[in-house]
């Protein structure tokens, strides 16, 4: 914000307003380098800016045409990267869903139209509904929200049902921990999503749409509303779009319930009810919102649609693998150098994503695993780093593409603790309607907690597996059905870590508090007393210049001594 203000005042001070267009964009995906400024047309990429730097960019680059070398991003060898197009973070990417992020001003419909926006809608209205559906089917586009169901097929189901009213819905209730692509697309390119939805509406014969966006995303809601208002003003929403089609769209805000991302729960929430899922069938395409045929598509899915119409289905299907066509947005989070959003063709390997685009693991630590697909997904260990990222390969490995969250974990991560965390999330977010999910996940969490506290038994591991199977087979919705996945996949790849907790009563990653102790190495301790002075429970004693000792019965294992010691004399064992 301050950087923007500084730039703005400098630009106007130099009377450059007519030549320079300064605007806020959606996230370009490089959260760790922020704040960033990109100067087009060259794509000069300035990173980690302070307000004073912004002024320098204006006076040097914009006024005199000289690139400010010291503010450019650097590659792994600390060499300046001249433009965003050559930055290692972007070079391996293929941005289709994210094509306009960071390129156009999301609050300007004119800029969207200038890059070909709403032309696809116009083109579609010249086609028959069946032609549109066939085109989307041919592209191979599959739902990007998690399940990966072919989008064209979904549309065909809803088109086939006769009804006086049909609905299309944008699912923007993104909630998987570690996934934030829907937020970024709505914030950075809302018109693409609106256009995609209008095309879906035409294809199935719906005249009313809803955008269900979680309330935690206020900026996304604001920009989407601006975009809707602009589209109405331009006659691209409302009555008689291109003189041929009536379609309008209304935003509905979520209110803090993860389960509303499940499509039947989402529809109930729009109806004004508790967001609880119902059994399927009937599928929403047959009986959805208020009992009418309804199509619910994810934000990212819809953002792809105008590009597919514009460039043709076979252009899109030329990216990706045999069964996973096109590209996928992944969100990189956790212990990785370049956190942020990336979009790559399906089939790109996990190694390329983590080490080439993601820049590897920070602080010289080792890669341990990545959690793919959030709380419904599973972990992928280092031995499978060359796995191609596509629907089938990930499923075979016990994970899922899901919404595309990739949480990278380094060697300091305890996999039992991580599994426990994901389960804690599911327990919190279970709607409580069906017993396997409500009670079963709670019991699994209790067992995992017991194991991380060093009180687990071998029988507990068997119990976990039995419970997991029962929950998967009997839960009502996907939230419950997939809830045990993080436990099952960590058991599959990191069983030895579970056994260490249960049998040896140790935590190999030294995370679980009850299973570690802090010790002072007498030969390294100089007796500086800093640890003793900072110990919150006065558990450390010793004379000045003498080796100190920790009273294990008083130690609460907060780790303060380890952080404070300047001589590496405190160790975690």
């Amino acid at each position, binding site marked *: 914000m301050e950087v923007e203000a500084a730039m703005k005042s400098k630009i106007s001070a130099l009377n450059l307003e007519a030549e320079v267009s300064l605007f806020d964009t959606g*996230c370009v995906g490089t*959260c*760790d380098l922020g704040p960033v400024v990109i100067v087009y047309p060259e794509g000069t990429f300035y990173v980690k800016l302070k307000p004073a730097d912004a002024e320098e960019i204006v006076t040097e680059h914009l006024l005199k045409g000289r690139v400010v070398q010291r503010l450019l991003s650097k590659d792994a060898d600390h060499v300046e990267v001249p433009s965003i197009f050559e930055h290692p973070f972007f070079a391996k990417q293929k941005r289709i869903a994210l094509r306009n992020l960071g390129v156009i001003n999301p609050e300007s419909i004119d800029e969207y139209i200038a890059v070909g926006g709403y032309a696809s809608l116009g083109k579609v209205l010249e086609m028959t509904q069946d032609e549109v559906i066939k085109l989307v089917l041919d592209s191979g586009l599959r739902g990007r929200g998690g399940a990966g169901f072919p989008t064209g097929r979904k549309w065909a189901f809803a088109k086939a049902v006769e009804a006086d009213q049909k609905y299309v819905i944008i699912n923007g209730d*993104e*909630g*998987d*921990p*570690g*996934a*934030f692509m*829907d*937020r970024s697309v709505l914030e950075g390119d809302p018109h693409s999503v609106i256009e995609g939805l209008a095309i879906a509406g035409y294809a199935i014969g719906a005249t009313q749409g809803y955008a269900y966006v979680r*309330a*935690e*995303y*206020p900026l996304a809601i604001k920009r989407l509303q601006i975009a809707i208002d602009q589209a109405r003003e331009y006659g691209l929403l409302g009555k008689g779009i291109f003189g041929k089609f009536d379609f309008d769209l209304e935003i*509905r*805000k*979520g*209110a*803090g*319930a*993860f389960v509303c991302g499940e499509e039947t729960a989402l529809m109930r*929430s*729009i*109806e*004004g*009810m*508790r*967001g*609880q899922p119902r059994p399927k069938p009937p599928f929403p395409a047959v009986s959805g919102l208020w009992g009418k045929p309804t199509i619910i598509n994810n934000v990212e899915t819809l953002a792809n649609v105008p590009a597919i119409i514009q460039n043709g289905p076979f252009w899109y299907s030329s990216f990706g693998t045999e069964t996973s066509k096109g590209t996928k947005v992944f*969100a*990189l*989070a*956790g*212990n990785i150098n370049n*956190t*942020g*959003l990336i979009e790559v063709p399906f089939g790109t390997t996990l190694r390329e994503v983590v080490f080439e685009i993601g820049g590897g693991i920070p602080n010289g630590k080792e890669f341990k695993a990545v*959690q793919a697909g959030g709380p419904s997904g599973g972990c992928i260990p280092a031995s499978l780093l060359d796995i191609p990222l596509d629907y089938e390969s990930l499923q075979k490995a016990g994970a899922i593409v899901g919404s595309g*969250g990739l*949480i990278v*974990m380094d060697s300091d*991560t305890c996999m039992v603790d*991580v599994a426990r*965390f*994901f389960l*804690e*999330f599911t327990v*919190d*977010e279970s*709607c409580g309607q069906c017993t396997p999910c409500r009670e079963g996940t709670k019991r699994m969490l209790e067992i995992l907690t017991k194991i991380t506290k060093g009180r687990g038994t071998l029988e507990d591991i068997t119990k976990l597996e039995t419970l997991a199977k029962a929950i998967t087979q009997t839960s009502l919705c996907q939230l419950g059905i997939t809830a045990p996945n993080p436990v099952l996949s960590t058991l599959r790849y990191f069983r030895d870590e579970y056994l260490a907790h249960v049998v040896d009563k140790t935590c190999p990653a030294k995370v679980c508090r009850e299973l570690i102790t802090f010790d002072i190495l007498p030969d390294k301790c100089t007796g500086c007393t800093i640890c003793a002075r900072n110990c919150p429970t006065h558990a450390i004693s010793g004379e000045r210049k003498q080796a100190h000792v920790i009273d294990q019965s008083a130690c609460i294992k*907060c780790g303060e001594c380890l952080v404070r010691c300047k001589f590496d004399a405190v160790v975690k064992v």
Partner: protein
Amino acid sequence: MAINESCCCSAEEEAAVQAAINDFEPIRTNLIPILHRIQDELGQIPGWAMEAVADKLDIPLADVWGTASFYTMFDLKGRAKHIIRLCESPPCHITGAKKVLEALKDELGIEPGEVTEDGLFGLELVSCFGVCGVAPAMIVDHQVYGNLTPEMVPDVIAKYREG
């Protein structure tokens, strides 16, 4: 959880609730948008407001309460002036949310789910709100704070203490 029975609403509060209700067509689909508006205006959804909504929409009060209590963003109890929501989802967890939580507990002298004695701060642990690129993160009211360290906590809190 019981309905907050306190009826000592001011005339302004009552007017705000009526305005919220009257801005929407009184049909069920608008229940959640109306509740959102009341939450924004009053910082909570008191029992008397729910009664007014139930009357207007012509649905049972129990139904309004049942729906409102399902969604975590609706505050039916009336808590603190500033709500601090710290993300406890895995991307934040593995990047150090635990230490930030300790710092918050120290600074505020309360546990998650509690409110400070002066009613100024409430501390909550919440699920991912999608800013994993800057984990660990928290939201105070509507403001997001990212890349948190325990050292940053006192400064952030001080900002709100000063008002």
